[in-house]
């Protein structure tokens, strides 16, 4: 496919807002979960509207505007978002009202803002964009579905300058519930030491990241997204290797031509095996990881795409993100492959090229 990233707006637990720098300074979070570093919203939203908006809406509108500015685009040709859990804060607010007040005397605001398409709708209102608009909510395929949809729009020339975003938020209340599952670590850790804690579960994070996709390459282009693939419930490592073989062959690439593999390692000893397996037995190249920077969540693929695109744009893999550092060799970064999975169920592969 001929689809290029020409702008990014990423609000995350790291300093990702400014596209001129790439992880020059890194925040080492030491808390139960990783919250985003919120921007000065007044730069993007007028104060009257700002007061009425919940956190994710503010982050969503700001990230979309950062992205379009970065791309030099005024109005996008489509808006597509993906989210695993949507507007968790508003959902909790309305649900607690319904349960605590016995279904009486409820205020509609939290309900109105709690549908998963709120961000795509609010961004459309903020940008006055009347074109194609869609939202996906499917676990580890939420952002990936949005990205696929956007790439098809560009590829089929149904739209250009397509705004594709992924968003999820973590709240204290939701964290108190997911902490009871085997997916979240019980202990509080320093985020940069994520892989040193050989325990069950991961740390939860959040972000909102938008990308402007275009069919035309220009001086703003970060990278070309050559292909993406989702793999649902692979039986074992062999099936994953077979899917990777098929994927690389389809894109006329040998695995030796991949300059960097970005792995979704999240520090969960139960589910990180596939990543080390791929590093040890399948690829033979440089590796990076990123969830010690972002935390893990359904749409972390959007953070991974930001990371991968920036390794190409800046031609560097920040030291903090190198995996298997001892074997890291300096070389031009032309082809980058991202491999991520959500709870061993939803696996995704992105292929980016210079």
């Amino acid at each position, binding site marked *: 496919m001929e689809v290029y990233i020409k702008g990014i707006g990423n609000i995350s637990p790291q300093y990702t807002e400014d596209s001129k720098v790439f992880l020059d300074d890194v925040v080492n979070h030491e808390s139960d979960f990783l919250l985003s570093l919120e921007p000065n919203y007044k730069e993007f939203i007028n104060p009257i509207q700002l007061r009425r908006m919940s956190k994710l809406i503010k982050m969503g509108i700001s990230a979309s505007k950062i992205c379009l500015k970065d791309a030099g685009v005024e109005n996008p040709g489509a808006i597509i978002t993906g989210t695993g859990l949507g507007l968790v804060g508003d959902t909790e607010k309305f649900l607690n009202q319904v349960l605590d007040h016995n279904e009486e005397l409820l205020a509609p605001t939290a309900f109105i803002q709690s549908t998963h398409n709120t961000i795509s709708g609010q961004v459309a209102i903020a940008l006055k964009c009347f074109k194609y608009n869609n939202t996906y909510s499917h*676990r580890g*395929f939420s952002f990936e579905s949005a990205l696929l949809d956007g790439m098809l729009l560009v590829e089929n020339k149904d739209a250009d300058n397509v705004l594709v975003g992924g968003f999820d938020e973590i709240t204290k209340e939701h964290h108190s519930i*997911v902490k009871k599952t085997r997916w979240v670590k019980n202990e509080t850790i320093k985020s940069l030491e994520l892989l040193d804690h050989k325990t069950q579960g991961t740390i939860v994070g959040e972000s909102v990241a938008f990308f402007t996709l275009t069919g035309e390459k220009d001086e703003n282009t970060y990278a070309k997204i050559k292909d993406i693939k989702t793999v649902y419930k692979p039986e074992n490592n062999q099936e994953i290797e077979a899917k990777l073989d098929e994927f690389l062959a389809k894109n006329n690439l040998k695995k030796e031509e991949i300059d960097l593999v970005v792995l979704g390692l999240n520090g969960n000893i139960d589910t990180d095996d596939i990543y080390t397996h791929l590093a040890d037995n399948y690829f033979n190249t440089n590796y990076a990881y990123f969830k010690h920077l972002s935390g893990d969540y359904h749409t972390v693929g959007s953070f991974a795409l930001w990371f991968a695109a920036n390794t190409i744009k800046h031609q560097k893999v920040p030291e903090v993100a190198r995996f298997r550092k001892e074997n890291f060799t300096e070389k031009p970064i032309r082809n980058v492959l991202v491999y991520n999975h959500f709870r061993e169920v939803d696996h995704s592969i992105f292929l980016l090229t210079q």
Partner: protein
Amino acid sequence: MSQRIFVTGIGIISGIGNNVEETLQSLKDKKSGVAEIKYLKTNHKGVIPVSEVKLSEEELIEKAGLPKGEPYTRSTLIGIIAADEAVKNAQISDIKEYKTGLISGTTVGGMDKSELYYKDLLETTNHIEYIESHDCGDSTERIADYIGVKDFVSTTSTACSSAANSMILGARMIKNGLLYRVVAGGIESLTKYHMNGFNTLMILDREPCKPFDENRQGLNLGEGAAFLVLESEELVKKSGKKVLAELTGYGNSCEAFHQTASTPEGKGAYAAMKEALDRSGLKPADIDYINAHGTGTDNNDLSEGRAIETLFGDNIPKVSSTKSYTGHTTSAAGGVEAVISILSIQHNMIFPNLNFKEQMKELKFKPVTEIIEDVKVDHILSNSFGFGGNNSALIFSRY
């Protein structure tokens, strides 16, 4: 890229029947599913009427032949039943034979169980399995596992246009050669959460809803699940199987006006319908019938009605809202109404807009109020509009 998209199977469960055959019978009998609340645990029981699937969860589990005690939400159960019927209806014996995807739409996801156990989830470790059935993807993955789909799974979540958007992505993936077949549609069970949400917006009619009526008082919520099997032209040629209809057009546009309201002139509705028509290559005069979004709210019926008038001018096709039968099944509505539209094409019938009495002052047209038989129904426009300004339109044509 020039592949045509064929519908080869349909499956449905809603307040008017547990399968396609029962649905058709209720449509012919003018039998609405809207009634007093029986299954949903809510204080609005006896006050706000809804169209529930007429089976308890135990009965749904038994009907689907599933093990008891698993964390299946009501949405998942009805989704499994409808998707399985669609696959069987399409005479698919080995779903893994060709690349097949499942794209389902839902907005409240597993909320029916989350709201039941939420305080337990916060305060105890009881029912913790239901935290993993809360998100929208859970139902889709359980349906996929039940019908054996592995090549692609995804979930749209654009409120009341979710199912229509599932079909649009499915059609585009087939056209791009990514999949040969897609089971596409939507599901939604009733929840206290969205019933109370709609109630705070004061758009729930306390009586059976009256779409396009001057004195309409709002919508009735419904629950249901409906799926279509979409297949590529190549695959249909190869198998020679019966085609139920062709998906000839689709449109998606955003109103970008207000989170829960449409412009009075129906800008978004117009744009979605126009795009669907343009894509199909049909002229407005070719459309024989519009299965309207027609919720019965003040706002929707006015803006949709005006958009229809703008697009069709003086030659307005027959219009009805079958939400007067099924209630507004929200994320499933696009699927439910696609199935009803295909039944119209198959049986040369147009199903009426029940409960209609008085024409809207602002509109030139009245909806169809009686069953029309032996009528030419070659092209149907089916509208689905959602919160957030997400408007979609589909065109189904006789093959």
